[in-house]
């Protein structure tokens, strides 16, 4: 099947517990994700939403897999850009693996559509968000304040 995928790997000096918390606690996500809150009960089948600081939804979906400290898969649909929304829901998977004193974080975001404009846009955003996440966890402050 035609698919567009963005893959990214980073290594963060942190424990799997703290990284999992940073990915699933909306009060932490807003610190490195340019004010966005990633909100869910984080159980399989529960709803998920990435919200702007004013509460409006940017992306919505549901939790497909949640294995705390190890793996999270989210059915992920953009709801603010009609062109992106028309491409349909994609899936974002985050895998955490211990690697010595660090955690290897592997993020895979895909949409079942060739040359997806949404994945092209997400490919520009994820390196910023994950660079901020790594800096916040390792040094206590983010590297980019604004998007």
């Amino acid at each position: 099947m035609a698919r567009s995928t963005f893959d990214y790997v980073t290594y963060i000096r942190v424990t799997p517990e703290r990284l999992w918390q940073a990915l699933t606690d909306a009060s932490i996500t807003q610190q490195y994700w340019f004010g966005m809150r990633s909100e869910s009960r984080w159980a399989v089948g529960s709803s998920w939403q990435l919200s702007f600081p004013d509460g409006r939804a940017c992306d919505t979906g549901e939790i497909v897999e949640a294995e705390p400290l190890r793996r999270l898969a989210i059915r992920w649909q953009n709801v603010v850009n009609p062109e992106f929304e028309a491409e349909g829901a994609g899936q974002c998977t985050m895998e955490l693996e211990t690697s010595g004193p660090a955690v290897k974080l592997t993020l895979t975001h895909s949409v079942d559509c060739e040359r997806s404009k949404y994945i092209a846009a997400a490919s520009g955003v994820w390196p910023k968000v994950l660079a901020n996440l790594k800096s916040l966890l390792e040094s206590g402050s983010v590297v980019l304040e604004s998007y």
Partner: protein
Amino acid sequence: MARSTCVYVTYIRTTPEKLWSALTDPKFTEQYWFGMRSESPWKAGSPWKLVTGAGEVLDSGEIVESDPPRRLVIRWQNQWNPELKAEGVSLCTMELEPHGTAVKLTVTHSIERDGSKFIVSVSGGWPKVISNLKSLLETGSVVLQDYERKH
């Protein structure tokens, strides 16, 4: 034309000058590049090599473009693995762009062939090396001491 490419982008809290120095000073590269020294006079046309602490040359090539502190292009050929060496010469481009109080670093590594095993190999290596570089510049110490091949 058939091509295999790996692109890795990160943002580092540093200046373009410090990042350029971190990429081109072998005493600095060995701190985050698992003991490897990236050595060259860093002028277009000059030779380049990546060597271990014991002096073994892992990769070699030449500088195609050198525009401090903005852009570096290296002709890059593996020297230690016959299968990867047989794929020929790759091109590695490093671009540094100021981004607020940070620098955006884009590494693009490509070779003119489909399904390159060399590019698969460097796709696993760059995230480790660049994660270490970012941690070293931002916190003073690296995140990974050893290159664990299984990861």
